[in-house]
C-alpha cells in the first residue's frame, strides 16, 4: 500500500506543483533575473549586471526606509505581542462575555489595510487638528501613527492565537504548580509562557513579517510624508519602480534585497524561538 501511494506521489502532487510553479516560482525567478536588467515593461529588458544593486545601496532613501522599517518593526512587534498576550491572559479567565470581547478584538483584522489607513488618518488628523498640524508635520507623528494602526489591527489576531495556546495547557500541570505553592506570577513565568512557546513562535513570525512587509497601511496613512521620511521598504520599492522611468530595475533590485532581509530575519527569529519551545 505504502509503495503504491509512493508511486503515484508525483501525480498527486502535480496540480499543486504546477500552480505553485506558475504563480510563484516563475515570477520569482523572473523577478531575480529582472533585477539585473534595465526595463520599462517586463517583456522588454536589457542586461546590465549588478548596476542596479549598486544604485540601490547608493540610494539614501532606501537606507532611510530600511532604518525606519527596522525601528518600526521592533516597536510594533514588541507592543503587539505584549498587548495581545495580556489580553489573551485576561480573556482566558472566567469573565462574563469573553466570547463577545474576543470577537470585538478580532474584528479590526477583518478590515483591509487601505481602509484602515484612511480611517486612522482621519482620526489622527482630527485630533491633531486642534493643534493646527497634521500627520505629515513630522516623521515622528507618522511613526507612532503607524504603530497605533498596526497594534489596533494585529492585536486581536495574535490574541486569538495566544488564547488557543493557553487553552491547550494541560490542567494537571497547572494544578500541580498550584499545589506546589507557586504564586500566579511564578506560574506565568515557569508554566504558562514555556508552554505557549509555539504560539510565541508563530505570533512573532507573523507580526515581524507583517511589519517588515507593511505597505497598504503605510501608503494610506502617510504615503511617506513628509519628504519620504516615513516611507517603509515596500513603499520605497513601489515608488522607485513607478516613480521615475528607467529605475524599474533598481526597484526590482531593492525588492530582491528586501526579500533576502525579510527571509533572513524571519529565519533567525524562527531558529531562536524554536529552540525555546518545550514538548508538552
Amino acid at each position, binding site marked *: 500500500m505504502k509503495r503504491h501511494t509512493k*508511486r503515484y506521489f*508525483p501525480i498527486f502532487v502535480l496540480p499543486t*506543483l504546477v500552480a505553485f510553479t506558475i504563480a510563484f516560482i516563475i515570477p520569482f525567478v*523572473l523577478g531575480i533575473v529582472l533585477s539585473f536588467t534595465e526595463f*520599462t515593461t517586463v517583456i522588454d*529588458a536589457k542586461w546590465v549586471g549588478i548596476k542596479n544593486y549598486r544604485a540601490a545601496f547608493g540610494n539614501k532613501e532606501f537606507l532611510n526606509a530600511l532604518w525606519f522599517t527596522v525601528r518600526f518593526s521592533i516597536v510594533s512587534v514588541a507592543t503587539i505581542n505584549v498587548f495581545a498576550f495580556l489580553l489573551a491572559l485576561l480573556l482566558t479567565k472566567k469573565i462574563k462575555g469573553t466570547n463577545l470581547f474576543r470577537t470585538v478584538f478580532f474584528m479590526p483584522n477583518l478590515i483591509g489595510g487601505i481602509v484602515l489607513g484612511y480611517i486612522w488618518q482621519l482620526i489622527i488628523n482630527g485630533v491633531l487638528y486642534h493643534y493646527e498640524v497634521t500627520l505629515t*508635520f513630522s516623521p515622528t507623528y507618522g511613526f507612532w501613527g503607524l504603530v497605533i494602526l498596526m497594534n489596533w489591527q494585529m492585536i486581536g489576531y495574535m490574541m486569538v492565537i495566544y488564547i488557543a495556546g493557553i487553552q491547550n495547557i494541560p490542567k494537571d500541570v497547572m494544578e500541580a504548580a498550584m499545589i506546589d505553592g507557586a504564586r500566579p506570577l511564578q506560574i506565568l513565568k515557569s508554566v504558562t509562557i514555556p508552554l505557549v512557546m509555539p504560539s510565541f513562535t508563530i505570533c512573532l513570525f507573523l507580526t515581524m513579517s507583517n511589519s517588515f512587509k507593511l505597505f497598504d497601511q503605510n501608503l494610506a496613512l502617510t*504615503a511617506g510624508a513628509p519628504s519620504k521620511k516615513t516611507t517603509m521598504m515596500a513603499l520605497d520599492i513601489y515608488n522607485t519602480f*513607478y516613480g*521615475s522611468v528607467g529605475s524599474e530595475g533598481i526597484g526590482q533590485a531593492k525588492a530582491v534585497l528586501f526579500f533576502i532581509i525579510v527571509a533572513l530575519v524571519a529565519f533567525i527569529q524562527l531558529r531562536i524561538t524554536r529552540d525555546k519551545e518545550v514538548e508538552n
Partner: protein
Amino acid sequence: MKRISKLLAILLALLMVMGSLAACGKKDTPEEGSKEPTATNAPTSKDTTTGDTAKEEKVDEIYYLNFKPEIAAVYDKIAADYEAETGVKVKVVTAASGTYEQTLKSEIAKSDPPTIFQINGPVGYESWKNYCADLSKTQLYSYLSDKSLAVASGDGVYGIPYVVEGYGIIYNNAIMNQYFALADKATSYKSMDEINNFAALKAVVEDMTAHKDALGIKGVFASTSLGAGDQWRWQTHLANLPLYYEFKDNAAYDNTVLAGLAANEIEFKYAENYKNIFDLYINNSATAKGLLGSKTVNDSMAEFALGQVAMVQNGNWAWSQINEVAGNVVAADDIKFMPIYTGVAGEEKQGLCVGTENYFAINSQASEAKQKASVAFLEWLFSSEKGKAYVTNDLGFIAPFTTFEEDEKPSDPLAREVLAWMEKDGVASVAWTFAAFPSEEFKNYFGDALLEYAQGGKTWDEVVAVVKDSWKSEKAK
C-alpha cells in the same frame, strides 16, 4: 521498474504543464515570448505580429487608456456611440488621478495592451519611444492647426496634442466686486483690470484677508492642497513660471522647453518669485498652514464652488469640477481667469499659462490593423459631426485641429476665458515649460519640500536646495 515509473511521471507532469499552458492559450504567448527579449534585448518584430496577423482585416476592439478621470464618463458614452456606428468596440480604461504612468506600465505589458495611450510631451516620448508609432502620415496629423505642437523626432511624429489648456488664478468676480465696493478698503483699485502685477495682487489679497468677514469668505485663496498626489498645482503648474523665465533668459534657445531639456542643472533664479506667490497663497488661505498636508484639489475646488474663497489656482479643466459641486453658488458669468503674477519685471504683459501635456500616441507594438483602427477612432472623434459635438460640448476641449469651426469652440466659461486671454493684444502666453521637468520624482521632491516649508519644517533656502539638487540628480538618471 521504479525508474520507469518515475520517468513516466515526469513525462506526464511535463505533458500536463504543456497542456495547461496551451489551455491558457493566447493569454500566455506574450509571456512566453518574453523570455527571449530578456536575454537578447529589444523586442523582436515577432511578438508584435504573431497571433494577430490571421485576422488582419477585422478589428473588433481597440483599447484607449484615458488620462483624465474628470471626463471618464463622457468617454464611455463616446465609445458606445462609436460602437453603434462602426461596430468597433472601444475599451476605455481610466487611470486614477496621478497614476497614469504606473497604469500604462502594467497595462502595456499585458497581452491586450492599450492601442491608444497618452504621453506627456518630449520627456514622455523618451521613455515610451519603443511603443510610439509614427503618425506623420495620418489624417489626424494633417488636421493639426499648428504642426509644431506635435511631439516629433527626426522625420517621425509620435505624439499629437488633442487639447490646448490654460491655467492661472481663477477668481470669483462677484466676490471681487463686493470687495471693490467696500467703503473701508485700503487699496484704490476699482476693478480686476487694474490688477496686472504681483504688487497689486498682493495689496488686494492682503486687504481682502483683513476684510474677510465683511466679504463672507473663509480666506482669499482656496487651500493650497499639499496632500500626497494633490501637489501638482504647485510642483508642476506653479513651478512652471520661475523656470519658464529662467529658460527664457537662455539666449541659446528660442523655446523654453528645449532649453529646459538641455539643462542638466538649474539655478532656480526666480525662486524668490515663486516664494512671493506661494507665501501669498498659504498666508491668505482658507486653511491654516499646518493643515494643508491633508487637503486635496477637490477640497480646494469645493471651497471655491461654495463661495468660501475668492480665488483658486487651476486650469480650464476645473470647470466640470466647479460645476458639479452640490450647492455651487458661483455663477458661470462670474468665473474669470487672471495670470499668475509673481513679481517678475514686465509681467504686466504676461498671459495665462497655455499649452498641453496631452498627446495621443498609438501603440506601435499592437497589430497593424489595430493601429489603423485606433487612428480611425481618433479621426472620427475630431472630424465627424458627432465626434466634434462630443469634444466641444461634453469633453470641453479646446481642440487644436483645423476641423473645428469658429462656432465649435467650447462654451464653458473657463475655456472661453482661456481663448480670450490667448487673443488679447499685447499679452503673451506662458508656455508649459514643465514638459521639460526631468521626472515625476523631481516633482515629488519639490512638492514634499513645499509641504515641509508650509508646515515650518524647512526654510525657503532648503526648499531651493532640494529643487536644484533633485533636478540635477533626476537628470543624471
